[in-house]
């Protein structure tokens, strides 16, 4: 009970601090030191997100990561990192990415913690493989982690609506993946948008109100990112409709096979 409470409180803390760091341009519009906001913003936000990830990792590795789960996740992350290479092979427009469906399905089937690890570690490992280590990586890791973590909400909804193992389950997952297809891009722009459009007295510093900042971000988002995010959402919908059922059946089968218990193990 105490450990569950620690886990939940940790998740809430990480979510609040991580999100408020990313949303700082909106929720701190009256801050006075605009020079600090603009120049160091991406790095400070990345640093705070790295610390948030460290907290989740320490919590998760002590609660769910035994040797079975390490092997299981290692393999799935490897497959998902490989799907980034398949992006070129699968016919699809810019923004289309097949990596999210496995993150969502793992979070949906195995729960929020495993889902978070799947998302965050997929981004990390594929970053290592593709040379994608950069200030954007912590943001990608935590956002993809949230994708996997919140997939447990879709599982909860399916259970409540008695959709499990029916087509309704696929529809819930499809809606969820379409929603995250848009939200992922919306969040990922935040770490550098204030930097790109920032500066003394400009869009999100002392003179601008919350609504003005949201309007400016909206204009920036429409001009630069919305097409990418729509194609990502459509891609997620197509992949989920096509592949969700067979993959869930595979997970069901391996969930039972992974339920073995080692004699003498304390877990």
């Amino acid at each position: 009970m105490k450990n569950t409470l620690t886990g939940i409180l940790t998740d809430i803390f990480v979510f609040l601090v991580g999100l408020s760091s990313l949303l700082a341009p909106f929720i701190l519009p009256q801050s006075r030191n605009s020079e600090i906001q603009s120049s160091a913003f991406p790095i400070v936000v990345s640093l705070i997100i790295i610390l948030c990830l460290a907290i989740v990792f320490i919590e998760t590795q002590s609660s769910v990561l035994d040797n079975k789960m390490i092997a299981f996740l290692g393999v799935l992350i490897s497959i998902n990192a490989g799907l980034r290479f398949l992006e070129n092979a699968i016919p699809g427009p810019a923004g289309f990415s097949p990596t999210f469906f496995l993150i969502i399905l793992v979070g949906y089937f195995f729960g929020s913690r495993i889902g978070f690890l799947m998302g965050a570690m997929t981004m990390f490992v594929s970053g290592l493989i593709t040379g994608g280590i950069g200030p954007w990586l912590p943001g990608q890791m935590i956002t993809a982690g949230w994708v996997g973590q919140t997939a447990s909400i879709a599982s909860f909804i399916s259970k409540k609506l008695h959709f499990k193992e029916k087509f309704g389950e696929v529809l819930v997952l499809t809606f969820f993946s379409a929603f995250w297809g848009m939200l992922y891009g919306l969040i990922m722009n935040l770490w550098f948008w204030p930097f790109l459009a920032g500066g003394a007295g400009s869009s999100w510093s002392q003179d601008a109100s919350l609504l003005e900042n949201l309007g400016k971000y909206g204009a920036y988002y429409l001009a630069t990112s919305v097409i990418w995010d729509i194609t990502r959402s459509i891609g997620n919908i197509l992949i989920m409709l096509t592949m969700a059922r067979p993959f869930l059946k595979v997970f069901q089968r391996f969930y039972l096979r992974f339920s073995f218990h080692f004699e003498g193990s304390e877990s």
Partner: protein
Amino acid sequence: MKNAYIWVLWLVNAIIFVLSTRNPIYLFLVLISLFILGNRKTKPQHRKAWFILNLRFLISMILISSLVNGLFTHLGQTKLFHFPSNWLLIGGDITLESLIYGAVNGLIIGSLYLSFNIFNLALSVKQLSRLIPRAFHPIGMTATLALTFFPSIQQRAREIKEAQMIRGNPMKKISDWLPILLPLIVTSLEDAIILSESMTSRGFHAVSNRNQENFSIISLVIGTFLIFSGWILNLFDYPQVISIFLYVVGGSLIIFILLKKGCEFRVTHYHRVSWQKKDIIFCAIFLIAIITQIIFAALYENNFSFTPYPQLSMPSLNIGGFLLSVVPLIPILASNHD
């Protein structure tokens, strides 16, 4: 220069300088240094493509950043043209100063991107994965497994794809990929079961004292909250000494907990990282450069900084700025020996 920790110091030094200066001349020098170094680090047959790709990225960042800042920020005295004030968000004067400010932001983003790009070029995947702190041993183990399995899973995917194509699968629609992905995931998860059994039989089994974990987690939460609070107070112009105090206390707590946690895991070193004489020299140079920048920032505020507002002027220059601009080029001295 093959020591990963020295490359981390190189990266930290480059990031601090790039973010602390808004002087376009220093930024140009940094970019030239980075392009020369990156060119050396790239394989000869890929040099031209690497250069063009990164130059294209840099130019596009400068253009996008200028455009965004120019349209949304209406500060500055040199008016180029005017949009009607009733135009939502972009209505007002378009000034030379706001365009220049945006271009400088583009230079900074380009420099950051290039610094990380070179960092990726300089270090192998193995070196990068070894940078994961020992406190995250199970997480590092998961990442290492994923990296180890990656080539065999790629190979298996190719084999299944070829088999499917022989059977007449056209591989044109998303649904055509299902017969590849399903066998791939089934066979890979079979491997995972075998792996987990062999890990257990070889004695790899993470057992942790959950009460100790709770202490570590709570300490990390407190440390992160202190750093976050320091940043927020700094944004609102509270005395800087409070923020520095919170950074130091929070940072020390986090480092202490991670070191303590790291000691819980016994790690076998097959290849110890060796420190040669030249590594120590490079390490000293980058540390001196980092400390110098911190001291300069504390004693002489805005020493390397530049702002085009309210009216565009020539950026001021000094010898310290020139020297720090070429520090990122230093690893080129070692490249011949690597």
